[in-house]
């Protein structure tokens, strides 16, 4: 069991701040970096790999400071979103390449054995003599992953490795990666922009936003209790509905609907405004219980995805929300629709800071 410790890492590019005061502890197994594009996931990985030097702060592996260790001397492997392999080398030579330049000398038999092992693990055995350009995208990425694993690095960085693959391959490879990495002793750092992927891994996660780590914890815990709007957005798939709302005397307004809202978190506090959040799946077209609140809105758009339909509806106030309906249903444009939600399913965020005020009931463990 090893640990990687990031202490107060910051990075400036000229006058521009790229990373702000990042501190985190990652341990053996899969660690997820979750966040939208440009949130700083790749930059953080490059910092950990040593490709970029932090402006301040330090990185320690098992207690030993590695901030000043050169890239090639760090025990690091990197898999990119693009499929990066040596184009003129065969799959065998590609997987063997990090072993050949390793400081520890490996005999030819050792290298061959390790390459065979990696190829078997990733299902590449029949393709060892091919060039990367003669493989499919999924196979090319497998080669890149095999290359990364071949040297048994302490840290394995995977930067959105599945983003360029089609849906089916992504699902398949994700499942395989989970089982492969569960047997490795390395600290695996895996970045993704997709909340569903993060929830699927269900492991230690770090939510990134605008160059900061805003929340750390198990993916599902973050989903249930995000610290702020950004974390809620980063972990919500489909995107969470957000509506500005006013509040007084335990009565809140959802679009044009006033209703009773009883939350111990806000009782007795002087709050007159907040942002309400609700998952599209929590809004229904039929009442679900005695405390369901009914509202009506106009249909703007219906997206059918196969297993469910996303209905975009608009209130008289001009605000729009999305409702997720099971199955494929057809809706008329501009048709008036009755929707129901349960106040217990609402998230509350501070209007100015975005910080969470309350979570859906039942999500508190």
């Amino acid at each position: 069991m090893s640990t990687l410790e990031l202490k107060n890492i910051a990075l400036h590019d000229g006058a521009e701040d790229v990373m702000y005061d990042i501190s985190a502890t990652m341990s053996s197994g899969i660690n997820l970096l979750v966040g939208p594009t440009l949130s700083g996931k790749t930059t953080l990985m490059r910092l950990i790999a040593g490709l970029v030097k932090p402006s301040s702060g330090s990185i320690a592996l098992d207690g030993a400071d590695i901030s000043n260790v050169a890239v090639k001397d760090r025990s690091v492997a990197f898999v990119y979103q693009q499929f990066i392999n040596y184009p003129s080398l065969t799959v065998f030579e590609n997987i063997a390449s990090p072993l050949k330049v390793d400081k520890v000398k490996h005999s030819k038999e050792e290298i061959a054995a390790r390459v065979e092992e990696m190829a078997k693990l990733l299902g590449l055995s029949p393709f060892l003599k091919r060039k990367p350009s003669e493989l499919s995208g999924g196979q090319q990425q497998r080669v890149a992953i095999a290359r990364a694993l071949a040297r048994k690095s302490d840290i394995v960085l995977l930067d959105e490795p599945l983003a360029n693959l089609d849906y089916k391959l992504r699902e398949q490879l994700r499942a395989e990666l989970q089982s492969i990495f569960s047997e490795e002793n390395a600290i695996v750092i895996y970045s993704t922009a997709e909340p569903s992927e993060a929830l699927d891994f269900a492991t230690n996660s770090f939510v990134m936003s605008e160059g900061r780590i805003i929340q750390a914890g198990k993916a599902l815990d973050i989903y249930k209790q995000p610290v702020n709007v950004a974390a809620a957005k980063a972990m919500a798939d489909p995107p969470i509905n957000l509506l500005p709302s006013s509040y007084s005397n335990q009565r809140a307004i959802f679009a044009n609907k006033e209703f009773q809202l009883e939350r111990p978190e806000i009782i007795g506090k002087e709050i007159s405004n907040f942002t309400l959040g609700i998952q599209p799946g929590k809004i229904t077209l039929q009442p679900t219980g005695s405390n369901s609140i009914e509202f009506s809105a106009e249909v703007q758009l219906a997206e059918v995805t196969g297993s469910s339909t996303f209905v975009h509806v608009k209130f008289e106030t001009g605000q729009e929300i999305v409702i997720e309906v099971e199955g494929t249903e057809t809706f008329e444009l501009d048709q008036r629709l009755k929707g129901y939600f349960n106040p217990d399913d609402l998230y509350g965020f501070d209007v100015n800071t975005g910080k969470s005020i309350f979570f859906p009931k039942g999500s508190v463990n």
Partner: protein
Amino acid sequence: MDAKKKNNKAWFLVLPVVFVVAFTAIIPLMAVANYSLQDIQGADNRLFVGLDFFKRVATDPNVQDAFARNVTLSMQILLIQIPLGIFLARLMPKSGWKASAALVVVAIPLIIPWNVVGTTWRIFTRNDIGLGGVLVNKFTDYNLSESTFDAWATILVMDTWHWTPLVTLLVYAGLRSIPQAYYQAAAIDGASALAVFRFVELPKLKRVLMIALLLRFMDSFMMYTEPFVVTGGGPGSSTQTLSILLTTIAIGQFDIGVAGAFSLMYFLFIQIFSFLFFTVLTLDERPGATRVTPKEKVKSREKVEKPVNSKLKKVLK
């Protein structure tokens, strides 16, 4: 017969192109072919001579010498300009205003007309008033109208100055299209600068370099204006290229039949050589080479690659 009648009228859209190409390429070429087969003494006095002119050109020692000179010149040009072009492209700034500035500066020689290049260098290399000529004369005797070596070297240096930028620009564009991730991946592997060049850049530049090689070969093999202006093919015939010799025969001696045969052979040589060159370089990318099902492919590759991969086989055992 209820099958729909095929509408082939789209053919007519090709006609304008056919006309243009006919007037610019096919008809002139056919006229040349016409001249090459008959000895024309006057408007009404012509004699069909078959392939006589072709034989004469092929066995003419002047033509053979010029051919050898051209081959040597092209090879030297490729050997100097391709590596130099790659070297310069790698030195150029990667982004920002510096990159733009470098591109403009590098591209300047490319937009100067041939004749201007020749004239500029003619003056530049004069050993009484030319900047270059006087400077070189300070260190060693330099006179391009007397020394064959000086004349040859001048042509080589001038062409390198004029055309290396083309290679540089092509390679620069090729280098910029390599994702940064490749370099980072190589850095993490601990690959040396040489290994990065050999295993990342060179394979990625393969296609671009092929185009550079082809263009530089064709252009240099057809070189005419610059040596004509700078040395006039001299001293003696030491810098006389095929093009200069051809012009002498066609216009100087007005030997139209021989010149016609010469032109066709010249044209065909460049055509065939370029085709072979291209075919050999793209051998492994031909569609036929990869259009097999994966299973068969593995087998067939094993068969083919046995001798190459015998080393690998041993390792695997």
